[in-house]
């Protein structure tokens, strides 16, 4: 895909990058996800919002096969991935991040990103080669760290940097896989407000040529970034539409946005 302009999107074939039909998940007696049908058009940024405990992270887990669904089907770019293993989903081009910051704490920032690149470059199972062979990837690693503003800290351990920087590192690591579909679970939670703009910009830029689904509580960010919004409540889809449609919905207002927002 070349220069991509959201305002000039083709009205034709807004092909679904990802679709889920009738997805459900029970944990014992508890219906965490209840018959969710979701369609995400290729090249869009799609927000998933909803109160805490609505099942947003669980839905991400289902879509990426980290959690086996009780019923339903998932299709990624035309391929039925319902029976895939989580790592096969990744190889099919869909990568998730985690709500709780997921970095490799005792590896340097550079090594964190490099691990993500190793598989793509076929440098992941050579136990007989010295580690310095991986230096061939450093150019690509540094470019990714630069994108998220972490180049200065490349040699630091991930455990030593601030929470916001861990989140940025996670994003760089996810981008390293060059996924077609990227699932970001609250990528800006816990970030200083100064950093939020930077990360929002980065997500917007990395959205070019990709499909992104993100869980986000900050509605300004959602309005700014996202083409479509799905509201989840108690495991079910409450509403779906553009940001303005969602904002206008009385039902959503009551259940989620509350009195505080307007």
């Amino acid at each position, binding site marked *: 895909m070349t220069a991509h302009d959201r305002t000039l999107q083709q009205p034709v074939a807004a092909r679904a990058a990802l679709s889920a039909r009738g997805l459900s998940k029970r944990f014992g007696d508890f219906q965490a996800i209840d018959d969710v049908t979701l369609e995400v058009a290729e090249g869009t940024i799609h927000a998933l919002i909803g109160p805490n405990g609505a099942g947003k992270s669980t839905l991400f887990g289902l879509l990426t096969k980290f959690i086996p669904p009780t019923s339903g089907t998932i299709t990624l770019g035309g391929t039925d991935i319902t029976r895939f293993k*989580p790592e096969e989903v990744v190889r099919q081009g869909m990568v998730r991040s985690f709500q709780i910051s997921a970095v490799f704490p005792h590896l340097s920032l550079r*090594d964190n990103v490099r691990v993500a690149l190793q598989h793509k470059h076929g440098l992941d199972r050579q136990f007989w080669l010295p580690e310095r062979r991986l230096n061939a990837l450093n150019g690509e690693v540094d470019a990714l760290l630069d994108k998220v503003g972490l180049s200065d800290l490349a040699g630091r351990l991930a455990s030593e940097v601030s929470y916001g920087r861990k989140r940025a590192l996670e994003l760089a690591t996810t981008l390293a896989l060059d996924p077609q579909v990227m699932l970001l679970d609250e990528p800006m939670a816990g970030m200083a407000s100064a950093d939020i703009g930077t990360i929002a910009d980065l997500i917007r830029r990395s959205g070019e040529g990709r499909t992104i689904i993100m869980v986000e509580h900050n509605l300004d960010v959602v309005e700014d970034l996202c083409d479509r919004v799905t509201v989840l409540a108690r495991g079910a889809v409450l509403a779906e539409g553009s940001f303005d449609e969602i904002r206008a919905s009385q039902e959503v207002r009551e259940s989620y946005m509350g009195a505080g927002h307007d």
Partner: protein
Amino acid sequence: MSITDNTDFADRGAGRSIDWKMPVAIAVLLGLMVVAPFVAYPIFVMKLLCFALFASAFNMLLGYTGLLSFGHATFFGGAAYATAHAAKVWGLEPLTAILFGTICAAAMGAAMGIVAIRRQGIYFAMTTLALSQMAYFLFLRAPFTHAEDGIQNVPRGRLLGMIDLGETMAMYGLVCAVFLVGMAVIWRIVHSPFGQVLKAIRENEARAISLGYRVDRYKLGAFVMSAALTGLAGSTKALVFQIATLNDVAWHMSGEVILMTLLGGVGTVLGPIVGAGVIVAIQNMFATTGFPVSVIMGAIFVICVMLFRKGIVGTLGQYLRQTRRDPGAKE
């Protein structure tokens, strides 16, 4: 992710800090290996080297992959049986017998690993323990192990048909060579592209999966390699002591190697060597006094867990880093 959480893992990638430390450590180690047989009983030093290699192979799994195995005695003692049988009954050349024992350990590692590797955390440890108990009873019943008697009077034989290993110093030379080769192999695996993925799995398995890694395969690979290197140590020990017994396949041998690794410092290259040295030395000191060694081992374990969780080498390394820390580099 249990014990390894407490550890300060020393490596910072293709770190600059190891540039000078490694050659110094190697030189000191080589120096000690040359001097040791003249100041201590050679058989004691050989035992120490075998256990140091055993603990290092174990540490590859616990320290660099984050897998706690309670079944490594099976590979250590199983390889000892295989080598002893090959040398005594089949009359194999010693190096070939050692190689045979190593391959047997790798095969046992593959069998145990395939069953255990899918379980997480403590269930993995329990599965390895259960399987190694099963292996213990198989070894107890199998005709070739001679039950309580073990395989005794194993001939050391002639290395490549030439060098008589009955000569203590010849045997010592072979043990040193095996130790150095084993350590070099471990060093290479741990500091390789594969090793880097292992560390990622140790650090955050879910994240490694979410990057597309089939973590079970890497874990199984590491498990088999660790089993093989453990077998290398066990095979060599069988030739040193010219005996293979149930003692080496029993569960307390699995416990001992965990203690050595934790005491020395999990996830450090030198830690298991130091830990093995301390434990073997203490065992030797008290072996003749009649004082129950297990009491001392228990006490060491408690002290180690309560006072210095990073082990001897880990604690020292942390101390050195703190005193050298450049305050200007703070974020």
